């Protein structure tokens, strides 16, 4: 064996492990180079990481940047009120215009629908009224649309606020809770003003006026929509008084079914004098 051969043998014995290790690293580098060269393979590896980072960033935006953005917007708006008004004016104007035109459209549809009903009893009555009063039929229809209407009636036990009976045109939220809250509001107002001899008589809510008429053991809460004048209020008061007399006469407070039948018969037929 020559000196060179001995040296080669010695190298093989001593450096086999290192060589194998170096070869595996070279292989890994080659694979990595290949991944970096091929776009789709690189994106496969990197995309989930970027997505995760982006998700975190998006999630944390309100927390990290929210206060700074709000503060800067506040200052910006404070410093340039005129510009803000100028920018918002056309948008708000358009919105209001759109809302009004939508409402007019609804009203006009209702007028047309009612006007088409010419040969009904009501249509003939309206025509006669128009001829005799000189007011156009459409004006009468519009005026009719704003007529006061009893939407809901509650007979509520005084003090406890327990619902004894009710009448309603449309289903509403829980009537027991309405009765309780009405009683609480009534009690609060009467208590707060220390007017034990005076009662809360009405509550205005959205498009409704709720009238409260007190009797000995209970009170009647009547929710009315439409234009409700003082004259009509008197009429309603008299009507409620009649209903109350009937309730007492027939002793209906202990029979919810019979009481509600009476309320349905009386209030669904109720027409105010201007109708």
């Amino acid at each position, binding site marked *: 064996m020559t000196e060179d051969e001995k040296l080669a043998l010695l190298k093989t014995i001593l450096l086999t492990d290192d060589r194998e290790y170096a070869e595996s690293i070279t292989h890994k580098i080659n694979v990595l180079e290949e991944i970096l060269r091929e776009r789709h393979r690189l994106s496969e590896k990197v995309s989930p990481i970027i997505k995760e980072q982006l998700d975190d960033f998006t999630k944390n935006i309100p927390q990290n940047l929210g206060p700074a953005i709000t503060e800067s917007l506040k200052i910006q708006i404070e410093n340039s009120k005129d510009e803000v008004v100028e920018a918002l004016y056309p948008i708000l104007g358009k919105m209001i215009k759109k809302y009004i035109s939508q409402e007019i459209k609804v009203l006009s549809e209702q007028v047309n629908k009612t006007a088409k009903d010419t040969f009904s009893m009501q249509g003939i009555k309206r025509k006669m009224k128009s001829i005799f009063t000189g007011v156009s039929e459409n004006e009468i229809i519009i005026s009719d649309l704003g007529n006061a209407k009893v939407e809901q009636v509650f007979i509520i*036990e*005084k*003090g*406890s*606020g*327990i*619902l004894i009976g009710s009448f309603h045109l449309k289903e509403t939220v*829980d009537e*027991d*809770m309405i009765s*309780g*809250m009405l009683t*609480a509001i*009534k*009690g*609060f107002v*009467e*208590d707060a003003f220390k007017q034990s001899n005076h009662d809360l008589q009405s509550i205005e809510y959205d498009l409704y006026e709720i009238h409260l008429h007190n009797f000995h053991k209970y009170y009647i809460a009547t929710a009315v929509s439409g234009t409700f004048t003082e004259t009509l209020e008197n009429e309603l008061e008299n009507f409620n008084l009649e209903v109350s007399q009937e309730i007492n006469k027939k002793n209906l407070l202990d029979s919810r079914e019979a009481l509600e039948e009476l309320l349905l018969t009386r209030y669904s037929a109720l027409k105010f004098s201007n109708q």
Partner: protein
Amino acid sequence: MISKKIVIVGHFGVGKTSLIRRFVEDVFSADYKVTIGVHILKKTVHVNDKEVNLILWDTEGTDDIEEIRKAYLLGTHGFIFVCDVTRPVTYQNIESQTQYLKDNFNKVPILSIGNKSDLLPKGSISEKKEELEFLDMLVSAKEGNNVQRLFEKIAKILS
């Protein structure tokens, strides 16, 4: 179906609202929101094949029951006086408070209950029960223990 007005009274933060929410909606929230004025909820319970509609008046917390607006207490069929078992200040004047209710609302049943029983140290419950023997029941709005039983009990008394 009969309807009964139940008024829940007691000091601030004893868990009156949580108790009602646990009973009506079966939820519990650790956030404390002060009740202003009165809040009304309802739930129907069945007692001996009868339906009882409980109208629950959740009043705002007060150190002195006499401060509650009389209008809220009128016509009440049953009172639930709630204490916090971890705060003696909420039950140390219970006798005078319930006496006030008895004097002003003759014959109206009153149930005195201790809420937050879940916060009692496990080993000391029987000891604490002895200390709180003047209470009709221990409940936990957080864990729901005894809540249903409490309202069924009052419904049974009233039906």
